[in-house]
């Protein structure tokens, strides 16, 4: 099989070919150190501040689309075949400021200016997607951008005003869409890419079957989907990751579709890529989804990775377990399906064999009478890791609770069902008392830890209260709101 040994992509207006790209080389270091394009800043190197925000344009089945991402944890190899747009590309050839830039200047959106290029890039992406955003849409778009100086008010005023300065239709990313599409199409040679030094080898399989075979060839390879975990292994923990097999570029793994009575999410689909389908079929997850990380991370991170990393504090496992999700694991041509909850064996230990990868996630569509809720509690509302996350799914048969599935994150060494609490509810009459019993039973289900996110006592009390909240929220007798408004 033919192979390629370099990475090719468009960087602003030019095509670049970079030979010998190690798996752990980041896009940010490439920009700042190799290219001396210093407009993109490093504020944290962990995906949390947004100072490094760039746009990555990718040619998918539905055409070319741009999304803001964190260059600090984005591996260079993963932009193969993409269009990378940095702050240097914004002002026109005549040196005139871009509408987003002019709006930021006029509204005094910068003080020290260090966060500013990142904000400009996020707002640029927002303006192209939603030319006239509401304040809430701006806030959601800026969940991944920190500013320590301005207090955000002037930035939001600028964001809301951008369209007065120009229309996205006239923007060069739109006017040059056809040319860029042609260029990116030409870069797609459909071969496996193998590049980088032996101890830091990066492999981009040609397709999903090639991924399966590459994993058999390198059973100990690090799989990289969105790199929103793996990126930090490199930038924060200096962990070697080679050989690494990338899968974020495989269209076939990004499919999100309803098939029969379930939604199937390809393991390579980013949070953003499955957002609409999630909101359509599981409306209770729409606001929850918006609270997973920030926009840039949602554009990279995958549900597959969120499951595969086995973290006890990942946000999707508890809500997916409550919904009765299953995952498909594949090794070579052999596939097996297992209930998501059984995938998590213990802290740091999952039911995944060497050479195996998560191929897809199947989430059954809600049945008649099923009531679902998803709750996330964190110290800071947005872009924070949960102290407690919960998925609750109750099926009512008249006044009786016919079935119930409750799963929590942040309460144990793995995402875990609350067996005792479920038992207290199963078959019980829908009542405050039944939920009170369930809340008490949680103390037998879990013995949470204390750490910097929350104490054990808080985790337990809040988790119990989430069951109480669920009852109040769903009970007909409740009239006043029992949860803070989302916007």
């Amino acid at each position, binding site marked *: 099989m033919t192979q390629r040994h370099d990475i090719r992509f468009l960087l602003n207006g030019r095509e670049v070919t970079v030979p010998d790209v190690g798996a752990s080389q980041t896009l940010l270091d490439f920009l700042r150190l190799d290219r001396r394009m210093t407009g993109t800043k490093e504020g944290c190197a962990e995906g949390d501040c947004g100072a490094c925000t760039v746009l990555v344009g990718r040619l998918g089945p539905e055409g070319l689309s741009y999304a803001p991402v964190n260059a600090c944890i984005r591996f260079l190899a993963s932009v193969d075949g993409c269009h990378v747009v940095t702050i240097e590309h914004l002002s026109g050839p005549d040196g005139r400021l871009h509408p987003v830039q002019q709006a930021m200047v006029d509204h005094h959106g910068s003080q020290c200016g260090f966060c500013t290029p990142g904000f400009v890039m996020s707002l640029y992406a927002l303006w192209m997607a939603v030319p006239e955003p509401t304040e809430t849409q701006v806030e959601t778009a800026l*969940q991944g951008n920190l500013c320590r100086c301005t207090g955000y008010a002037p930035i939001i005023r600028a964001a809301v005003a951008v369209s007065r300065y120009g229309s996205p239709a006239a923007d060069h990313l739109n006017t040059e869409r056809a040319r860029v599409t042609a260029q990116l199409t030409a870069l797609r040679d459909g071969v496996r890419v193998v590049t980088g030094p032996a101890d830091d080898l990066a492999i981009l399989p040609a397709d999903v079957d090639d991924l399966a075979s590459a994993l058999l060839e390198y059973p100990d390879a690090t799989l990289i989907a969105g790199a929103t975990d793996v990126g930090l292994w490199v930038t924060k923990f200096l962990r070697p990751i080679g050989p690494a097999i990338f899968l974020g570029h495989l269209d076939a793994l990004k499919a999100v579709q309803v098939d029969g009575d379930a939604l199937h999410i390809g393991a390579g689909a980013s949070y953003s890529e499955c957002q609409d389908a999630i909101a359509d079929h599981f409306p209770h997850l729409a606001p929850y989804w918006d609270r997973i990380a920030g926009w840039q991370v949602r554009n990279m991170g995958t549900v597959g990775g969120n499951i595969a990393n086995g973290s006890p504090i990942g946000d999707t496992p508890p809500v997916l377990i409550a919904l009765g999700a299953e995952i498909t694991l594949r090794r070579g041509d052999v596939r097996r399906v297992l209930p998501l909850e059984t995938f998590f064996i213990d802290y740091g230990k999952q039911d995944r064999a060497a050479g195996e990868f998560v191929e897809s996630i199947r989430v059954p569509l809600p049945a008649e009478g099923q009531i679902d809720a998803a709750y996330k509690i964190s110290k800071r509302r947005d872009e924070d890791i949960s102290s407690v996350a919960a998925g609750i799914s109750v099926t009512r048969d008249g006044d009786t609770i016919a079935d119930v599935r409750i799963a929590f994150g942040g309460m144990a060494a793995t995402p875990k069902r609350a067996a005792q609490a479920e038992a207290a509810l199963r078959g019980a009459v829908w009542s405050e008392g039944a939920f009170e019993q369930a809340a008490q039973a949680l103390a037998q289900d879990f013995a949470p830890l204390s750490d910097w996110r929350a104490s054990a006592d808080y985790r337990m009390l809040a988790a119990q209260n989430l069951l109480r909240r669920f009852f109040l929220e769903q009970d007909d007798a409740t009239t006043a709101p029992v949860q803070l408004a989302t916007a």
Partner: protein
Amino acid sequence: MKDELSIRGAVHTDRIHDSAIKHVTGSADYTDDIPQPQGTLHAYLGVSKVAHATLNAIDLSAVRTAPGVVGVLTAADVPGCNDISPTGQNDEPVFPTDKIEFHGQPLFAVIADTRDAARRAAELAQVDCTVLPHALDVGAAQEAGYPHVTAPLKLERGTVEDGFAAAANRLQGRITIGGQDHMYLEGQIAFAIPGEDDDVVVHCSTQHPSEAQHMVAHVLGVPSNAVTVNVRRMGGGFGGKESQMNLFCVVAAMAAKKWNRAVKIRPDRDQDMTATGKRHDFVVDYDVGFDNDGRIQAVESSFAARCGYSSDLSGPVTDRALFHADNAYFYPHVRLTSRPMKTNTVSNTAFRGFGGPQGVVAAERMIEEIAYATGRDPLDVRKVNFYGDAGRDLTPYHQQVQDNIIGRLVDELEEAAAYRQRRAEIVEFNAGSKILKKGIALTPVKFGISFTATHYNQAGALVHVYSDGSIALNHGGTEMGQGLNTKVAQVVADAFQVDFDRIKITRTTTEKVPNTSATAASSGSDLNGMAALNAVEQIKGRLVAFAADKWGVAPEDVRFLPNLVQIGTDTLSFDSFIKQAYMARVQLSAAGFYKTPDIHWDRASGKGRPFYYYAYGASCSEVMIDTLTGEYRVTRTDILHDVGRSLNPVLDKGQVEGAFIQGMGWLTTEELWWDDKGALRTHAPSTYKIPLASDRPRIFNVNLADWSENRELTIKRSKAVGEPPFMLGISVFEALSMAVASVADYTVCPRLDAPATPERVLMAVARLRAGA
């Protein structure tokens, strides 16, 4: 179109930040963006993994032989003095020789071809040490008999014992106030380039170039004139780059001289946050006597601060906490003491407000306590306690409050925010809402302006007018986003009556203005604006004398009009006038100087006038909490803030908005958490949560008190703005408290500790419900 009648960028007008266009295009250069000479090396710090130990030996052999490593620096390599204590206490080694005093303490530096290589190698050291018990917080330190890191301060006026005896009511309490990481977006960084002889140039991101210069000289053992420190701009400072940059500057400079190569050092965010100091956390014990109207009779408080292992700036920081322990309130009898405790944590440092905010939080807590104890609206308790006329105008440090405008400010805000009506509505809402509860609070701020170390209150500037009429401005202040350069340039433009664009703002460098003070204590434009004005006045004096002489008119008949000079009946363009002055050999350059008048402070007696004037402000915030989870939102904030006659209202408003959010973050989600080994576990934005756009109040009305004018002769009658509005965030903290108090029908002060995380809010709700 240009308005011929006025200049662009005059004082008291809105003007964009001078670097705004560079910010938005990514072309503003920060230290890490400066092109590196060939052969530039990179340094990285190796740090301690224990909190307290006797240091026996460090085996660096694996570090030295790691790929790309050029060498290492330890205490033994320090050519001069192994100390970077900014207050000369000799308690802060560059690298320790015999003891480790906190987890994350820098022990050595490794120098390598790339930053990545240096970073990896730094992990390979073998540290041989004998671990000792550690004390992380003030409680543990006091129990273990740890010393103060610097002499405590006592402020006393009246006789507290008499005050308590006469008071109808008395209560005691304690509040724990957490620290705060600066979380400037640009981390610490220094980049040293060696020169001939002893010379070295250090580009860095410091708020205090002169101190960095002196530290480098001190550590290298060379005179200060060999060292140049340059700062074009910082990506945020907030006090965290006042003394904390010294370490990075000296390491880069030592390495640059040793290997005769350019050397850059930039810690990653984790190291930045673990190895550099933060806002001091405090435990305040208060005892307050008051009458049945809530009027305070006597206050006795002790302020114990977690200072960390060395003094750094803890002396002046804890002093300033006491200076603000009255906030805007008159205490008839008062005794305040500071306890700057040594702990086995990083040495805490300056942070916007410099201890003042902790003092103010403690004052507001007493007000709150009194309000709950007397069943009165906290705002009414505030009002009866405000400083007033003679007899009620002396601070605990015996300075008379002469410029008090807090009454008017608070009244106006109360009205504009419809405080009374909303409070009543909230009480009603809470009565009918089982889970969600609201709270509202209106809190004032009075903040003293001047460095309490009197000698810091001086500044220099250098102004050149070139023969083509263009102007170069340099001053000792540093730009960290606050718009200082813009404001000082406005002062210069105004004084010459030329367009702002004509003035070139240049980097701050110790080569041009010597012996400067830190850009801190909100003093930047007060001091540097005056120094620049002084320089301009000197040049203008010479120009006027020249014109009067040449044209044969009286000096009063030489007038600087917008971009023109009128001499008698003649009118010239500024450029041609300058050209003529040059031809006539008029000196077109001047060094300006300023020192703040009328201030003095005697620490031993606790008496004086440490502050030139006060800045005031007030804010009113409304919140909603979820009593099932402790989560909350700030739904509305109204602010009225005093900046005197603003030099640039839009920049000042930006400071107020930003400071409020930063203050709110400090008291809500920004939590520092150490594990039992003494390691700080909230050391990056992933774990340390500063406010996001979605945390700001939905409704956010910020206004400047446009009627205010500084009664002192400050630059254009303006007031400092950097720090005072930080304390406006306290209104959020107290509004949360009210929402919590609603679950016990406002009869119990919830005694929330700061930061009021969702966890603290929920646990307080649970405590109040349980009737504890």
